[in-house]
């Protein structure tokens, strides 16, 4: 490119670099590189004075691309790219070349090969940055509206907070009334306080708020994701197409809650004599309104852990023990003559002192507690319950006229559909899991989706309220940003070339690729907000319709060629390494910092992930005269891009077969798993490979080219 004005800054790093590498020689040879209009040596490129000097030179020589050769980009990239940006050069057009950790420190004992290597590395950097285009910054305006799914306490709380913060809210509730669970609770256990005033207050706040739009009896039928926003379709019923309403939101609060397991066929459940806790709660409310005088019940038996902590529902629902205690106390207070027995496996009092007090209160009032073994649940007979008392070992028969079953809260029946629409992976119990970004990032909902309340797992009203508040404020913070922008190295599809095979979409580890209708056929479309720039699709695409602004094929191939361009036929073997920046490159830098060394004949090309290495690059390297190609990848299961490296092994296997069948020694290609903090391991692996390649000598391809007089 003749019209580029490229400046090279060489950092001496005090004497750290200049004591090994002959920077004057490097400077002389750097002038010969294409497009270079300025080469400047600085004592410390990353110091404030050095950065000032870079800025001044950019202005003075009106540079449009910059290469800074100094220490590792891992630590100083921000500073150098920041300086370039301040001087008006896009930070993508500033390339950092590591000649300290990756060269001077690695080859302290061999100044001459180190100088050669530094020149080669700078040439590779120049080759790449000359072909770089500033990546498109994806910037999307967030619609200032939030969707709250569910009109229970969580939904009401978060809707009110969002609206109070000035964000219009649409609250969708599929039932015909607001209030959810709390409607059916007659007190706010553990406190004896009546639930209805709190609920009425919350509903009134939402109803009367001018910024909240409440849709009752409606279903969300589809949520389609656009860039940074969601288009929500709401319908009168889930199955009809009448009166579909669509609107755009920037954030979604999932407060869909949970439902109570219907204990059909369990403990002779009939809804009359054997009831669930909720049904009993209603009964209690009626009793209380009739002043509790005519309680006809003489024997109430509560069975805890009914239908939970079993194979089907393995978890503890958490709130039912407490609810049982509350009901026991209430009924005892209304009619002290009623016999109340609680059959339990364990009492889970949630670690709260007020629940412990409730337990003491229930005991004082004469409630009987009988513990049964997990494998021997109580048996409900016609008019009595038989249970083995674990404490006394005696089988007891308790007469009853009401049995209350503590059934668990389970995920909503349509939780699967919601998860599918929002692309949230559910945990094994079917709830929406907690966010845990490092270990299970695939469980993490996207920015803009916040889950709260019982949709996570069973919880009581205090927890629900707390989570709803947290979720609402997270959403407010997200929406207040107004814009979401991504500057990642995002892949893009050339729609004219795309043949619509869909291979990329099938293999994208982030689900960023969807097929969309094109002019003639369906073509792939990449969502730039989801793409992480691993480069897997670029390699997979059979027609090479996908490209990336940085590390695209042209740039990598230019680097491959530049790596060997300056080498005379010195008889030394030439090894090209492709290193994943997270493992292989990190380990190589660390090797330099720890004073280790490997042969100076190795040149390394940095790729974002080993999945970006195309067999084409490897073949090109052999054709350009490499005697060996070393691929350094993260060990399986440790990929930073969701296991992209598993594909590498397959590719290398196939490529090796191909090389062997065409008469080329496949031992010249080696894939190794590298750990980022084990420099010794990397060094020994490279050394062993270099020894092997040394023994094999120059490759047949290179010899052929030499015979033809070509390089």
């Amino acid at each position, binding site marked *: 490119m003749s019209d580029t004005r490229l400046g090279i800054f060489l950092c001496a790093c005090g004497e750290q670099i200049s004591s090994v590498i002959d920077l004057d020689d490097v400077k002389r040879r750097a002038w010969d590189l294409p497009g270079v209009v300025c080469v400047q040596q600085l004592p*410390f490129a*990353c110091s404030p004075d050095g950065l000032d000097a870079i800025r001044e030179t950019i202005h003075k020589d009106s540079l449009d691309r910059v290469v800074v050769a100094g220490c590792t980009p891992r630590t100083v990239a921000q500073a150098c790219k920041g300086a370039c940006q301040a001087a008006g050069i896009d930070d993508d057009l500033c390339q950092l070349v590591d000649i300290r950790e990756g060269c001077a420190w690695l080859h302290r004992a061999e100044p001459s090969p180190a100088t050669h290597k530094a020149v080669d590395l700078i040439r590779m950097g120049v080759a790449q940055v000359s072909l770089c285009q500033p990546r498109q910054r994806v910037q999307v305006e967030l619609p200032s509206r939030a969707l709250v799914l569910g009109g229970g306490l969580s939904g009401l709380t978060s809707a009110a907070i969002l609206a109070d913060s000035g964000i219009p809210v649409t609250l969708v509730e599929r039932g015909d009334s607001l209030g959810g669970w709390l409607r059916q609770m007659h007190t706010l256990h553990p406190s004896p306080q009546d639930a209805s005033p709190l609920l009425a207050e919350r509903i009134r706040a939402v109803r009367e708020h001018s910024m909240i739009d409440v849709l009752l009896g409606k279903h969300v039928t589809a949520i389609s994701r656009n860039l940074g926003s969601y288009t929500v379709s709401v319908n009168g019923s889930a199955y009809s197409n009448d009166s579909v309403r669509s609107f755009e939101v920037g954030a979604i609060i999932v407060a869909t809650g949970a439902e109570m397991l219907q204990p059909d066929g369990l403990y002779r459940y009939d809804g009359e004599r054997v009831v669930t806790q909720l049904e009993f709660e209603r009964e209690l409310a009626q009793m209380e309104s009739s002043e509790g005088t005519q309680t006809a019940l003489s024997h109430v038996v509560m069975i805890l852990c009914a239908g939970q902590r079993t194979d089907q529902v393995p978890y503890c629902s958490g709130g039912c023990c407490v609810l049982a205690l509350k009901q026991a106390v209430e009924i005892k207070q209304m009619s002290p003559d009623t016999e109340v027995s609680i059959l339990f496996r364990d009492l889970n009092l949630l670690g709260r002192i007020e629940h412990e007090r409730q337990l003491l209160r229930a005991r004082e009032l004469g409630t009987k507690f009988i513990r049964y073994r997990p494998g021997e649940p109580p048996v409900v007979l016609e008019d009595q319950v038989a249970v083995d008392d674990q404490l006394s070992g005696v089988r007891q028969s308790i007469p009853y006229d009401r049995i209350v079953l503590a059934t668990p809260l389970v995920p909503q029946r349509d939780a699967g559909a919601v998860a599918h629409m929002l692309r949230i*992976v559910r945990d094994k119990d079917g709830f929406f899991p907690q966010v845990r970004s490092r270990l299970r990032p695939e469980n993490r909902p996207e920015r803009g989706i916040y889950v709260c309340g019982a949709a996570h797992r069973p919880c009581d009203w205090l927890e629900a309220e707390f989570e709803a508040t947290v979720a609402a404020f997270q959403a407010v913070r997200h929406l207040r940003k107004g814009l979401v922008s991504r500057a990642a190295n995002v892949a893009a599809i050339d729609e004219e070339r795309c043949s619509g095979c869909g291979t990329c979409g099938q293999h994208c580890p982030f689900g960023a690729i969807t097929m969309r209708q094109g002019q003639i056929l369906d073509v792939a479309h990449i969502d730039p907000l989801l793409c992480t720039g691993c480069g897997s699709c670029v390699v997979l695409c059979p027609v090479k319709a996908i490209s990336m602004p940085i590390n695209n094929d042209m740039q990598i191939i230019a680097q491959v060629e530049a790596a060997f361009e300056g080498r005379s036929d010195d008889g030394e073997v030439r090894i090209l390494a492709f290193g994943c920046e997270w493992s292989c490159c990190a380990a190589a830098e660390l090797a330099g910092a720890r004073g280790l060394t490997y042969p100076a004949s190795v040149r390394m090309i940095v790729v974002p992930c080993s999945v970006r290495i195309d067999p084409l690059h490897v073949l090109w390297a052999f054709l350009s005269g490499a005697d060996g190609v070393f691929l350094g990848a993260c060990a399986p299961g440790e*990929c930073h891009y969701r*296991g992209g490296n598993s594909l590498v092994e397959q590719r290398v296997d196939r490529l090796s077969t191909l090389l062997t069948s065409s008469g080329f020694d496949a031992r010249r290609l080696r894939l190794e798993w590298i750990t980022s*903090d084990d420099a010794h391991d990397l060094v020994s692996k490279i050394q062993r490979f270099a020894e092997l390649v040394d023994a094999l000598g120059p490759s047949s391809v290179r010899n052929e080219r030499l015979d033809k007089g070509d390089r």
Partner: protein
Amino acid sequence: MQITIDGRQVEAKEGRTVLQVARQNGIHIPTLCYHEALQPFGACRLCVVEIETSRGRRLVTSCTHPCSEGLAVHTASDAVLQSRRITVELLMASAEHVPLIQQLANELGVKEPRFTMPENTCVLCGLCVRACNEIVGVGAISVINRGIDKEVSPPFHIASNACIACGTCVLICPTGAITLADINGGAETAHKWDSAFQAVSCRMCGHHSLQPVFADHIKLLTVDEATATIPAGEAVS
């Protein structure tokens, strides 16, 4: 502005520290906790220099001391060298085996340290913690405890969820004291997709999840048996 370093008149820009100006002019001041890409920290005290003030000479850390017009700095006076020697001796007390410390001791002519402490490769320079905060921006590790118990660790000694396993701390550590396993728990390295991670949801605050290690400490308070094991991701297509 003009300042004088070891009798040499040098030009200094507004806002530069003494160390930056000295380095720019090729004057060597040893450092341990200083890194160009990070905010100065003043922890290691190796970069001490003597400045002349109206009330006599004073030792300051050159990495944090700003230049002012007419400042006179001595980088290798007796007081400075004496201070550095004691610093190195103290460093040697626990980290004599570290090559970098040995090199500093040779430079300053320190033979045997007069102090002994249990061997510890970490010299608490804080580079890893600051790199994690300032360069990577995740803050997975911090300096915890005080006095001789001070150490670098993820919060509560529990494998950090914030760590992205970039290895910057490992690279920047001058003594080689930190590994990724220290931060993310070793057995379960970062991004181990098929690992089953056990967590007990906290019933006290209802919001956070705890690792079982931590849950033990509050067993007396919680009666929760429900440990949720999240299975390897069931993919939603």
